[in-house]
């Protein structure tokens, strides 16, 4: 029983993080219509920038965090301006290829600047001693991750429902032409969504780097978030969070109960199996929009 609860605790905390990564993807998809396959690399770059400031330059943790968010925002702005602005009106195929080649370029830049090694934060940003809930033992990093994820989801919901910029972004996602017609600067909204998504990804990257270490393997966690978005539906922010929790939980369960049968490692591939099953039976996900197409 305690093993079960342990898996639930780990799964939910990891799932909340998946959820936030999923939200970053949904954010860009909803306003710009681009599914960002380079999401994983945004996590990696955020993690490495923060590592540079904390471990190499010995900045205080909070300052490094803020600087990382600022730099990541600039990166998001540059990416949108140089790579995705020319893709407006191009076929989906071109947009997909743009994101995957962006992934390659960002990976190359990371390798060039930081090399391929895993780097631990020194000194660590989060307290290291584990937290106990009855029988369940969780690293405090997971709790922080869960907390940050909940706060970020709250912020996103507040932003999209009650602030002017958020409403403008929601309007843009409905229809670019109409949004332009009522005087919304659509290209500025595109920039803004990339900036927000890049900053949020960097924050998640820092959390993940504290949990594991700053490494290129964090990219794989970003890839798993694609499965989250497929399950939740490409258009839904609450859907991404819920799907994140479901994927995190099911992955953790699979790792706990199926791994002994197949000899380990099912955790790496389980979200993708879920994604395939979802695509077979409910391609638009839990909360996505089922589109009706006309010739």
């Amino acid at each position, binding site marked *: 029983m305690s093993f079960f609860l342990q898996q639930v605790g780990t799964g939910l905390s990891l799932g909340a993080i998946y959820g936030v990564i999923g939200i970053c993807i949904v954010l860009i*998809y909803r306003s710009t219509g681009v*599914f960002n*396959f380079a999401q994983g690399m945004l996590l990696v770059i955020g993690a490495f920038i923060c590592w540079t400031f904390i471990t190499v330059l010995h900045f205080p943790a909070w300052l490094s965090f803020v600087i990382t968010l600022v730099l990541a925002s600039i990166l998001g702005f540059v990416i949108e301006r140089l*790579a995705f602005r*020319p*893709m407006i009106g*191009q076929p*989906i*195929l*071109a947009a*997909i*290829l*743009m994101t*995957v*080649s*962006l*992934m*390659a*370029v960002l*990976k*190359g*830049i*990371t*390798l*060039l*600047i*930081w*090399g*391929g090694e895993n780097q631990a934060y020194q000194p660590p940003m989060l307290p290291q001693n584990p937290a106990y809930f009855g029988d369940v033992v969780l690293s405090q990093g997971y709790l922080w991750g869960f907390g940050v994820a909940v706060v970020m989801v709250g912020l996103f919901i507040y932003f999209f429902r009650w602030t002017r910029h958020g409403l403008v972004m929601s309007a843009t996602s409905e229809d670019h032409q109409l949004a332009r017609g009522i005087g919304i600067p659509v290209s500025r909204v595109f920039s803004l969504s990339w900036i927000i998504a890049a900053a949020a990804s960097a924050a998640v990257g820092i959390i993940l780097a504290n949990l594991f270490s700053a490494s290129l393997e964090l990219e794989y966690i970003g*890839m798993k978030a*694609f*499965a989250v978005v*497929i399950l939740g539906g*490409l258009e839904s922010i609450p859907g991404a969070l819920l799907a994140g929790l479901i994927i995190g939980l099911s992955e953790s369960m699979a790792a706990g109960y199926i791994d002994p049968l*197949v*000899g*380990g*490692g099912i955790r*790496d*591939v389980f979200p*993708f*199996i879920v*994604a*395939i099953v979802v*695509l*077979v039976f409910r*391609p638009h996900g839990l909360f996505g929009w089922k589109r009706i*197409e*006309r*010739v």
Partner: protein
Amino acid sequence: MRLPCGTFNESYASDMAIVRTRLQWGLLIAFAILLFASPLFVSEYWLSIANTIAIYLIAVAGLQILTGYCGQINLGQAAFMAVGAYTSGIMMRTFGLSFWASIPCAAIAAALAGVLFSLPAVRVKGFYLAMTTLAAQFIISWLCMHGGDITRGTFGLLISRPQLGDFVFNTEIRWFYLIVPVSLIMLLLARNITRTKAGRAFVAIRDNDLAAEIMGISLFKHKMLAFAICSVYAGVAGCLWANYLGIATYEHYTLMNSVWMLGMLIVGGFGSMMGVIYGTIFIKLLFEGVCTAAPAIADAIPAIGGAVFAALGLITVGLVIMLFLIYEPRGLNHRWEIIKGTYRLFPFSY
């Protein structure tokens, strides 16, 4: 396609012909002679590059049918290559088949994998389809890695050199005379597939899938067929690649390989077999150029890390694909057609 001055298509057969004029026949024969005589005067190094390019040409030609002609993106082509490679390895090691018998096995196994993953893929499109094939890439890689004694996990399957009687394929020249003809035949086959009824149906699906369905083309059947053809090509390429290297390991069939193959399509141009050739040669030579230049760059700028080979390859090729997407999304083939047209009309621009 613009024809030279005074050449007209008077029948459907001449409209569909691949080689149209006498000059083209002459150039083709001259090129073939040059190609097959080239081992006499080029070094082993260039032959190995030619072999690599020829194997990739097969896989990219399959991808061209699926992505370029049928409009279905595939981020998992390398994984289907892996299916072919591992099938060939298992057939030769465990079941004692010869290399030649293992080629059709590899093709069939890859086709089955392609059809299996096309079941979710035929119902979705765009980003959902990209996600499906990405999942295929990860799941197949994972299976190869965790296949236990069957795939030998991280060690990979060692494969002995193929033989034809006493003739062992152990030098670059011998491989050249095996791989290049196979590659050319597969390319010709791919070009001919696009001229059949199914090929025209693929193009209709790419241009507007709903309109195609209303015209009576079965989307399910044709998308699945395109996936099957694509993975047969991947299977043959994977089988050759594994035997050429003497090892089948999942490390040669990563997501990045799949991405580069799509990049070759973009650089060459969607929807033309000549584009496959231009794109594959361009990207592969770019990689070789980067590998040659990397040590010099690493010496010149000592601050950059030890991963300079991988890093520069990723950055250069990624940037080239991005630039092509922005400035020449129809690829080198389109650019070449423009140059030919301009030359034919010179000095009058119309």
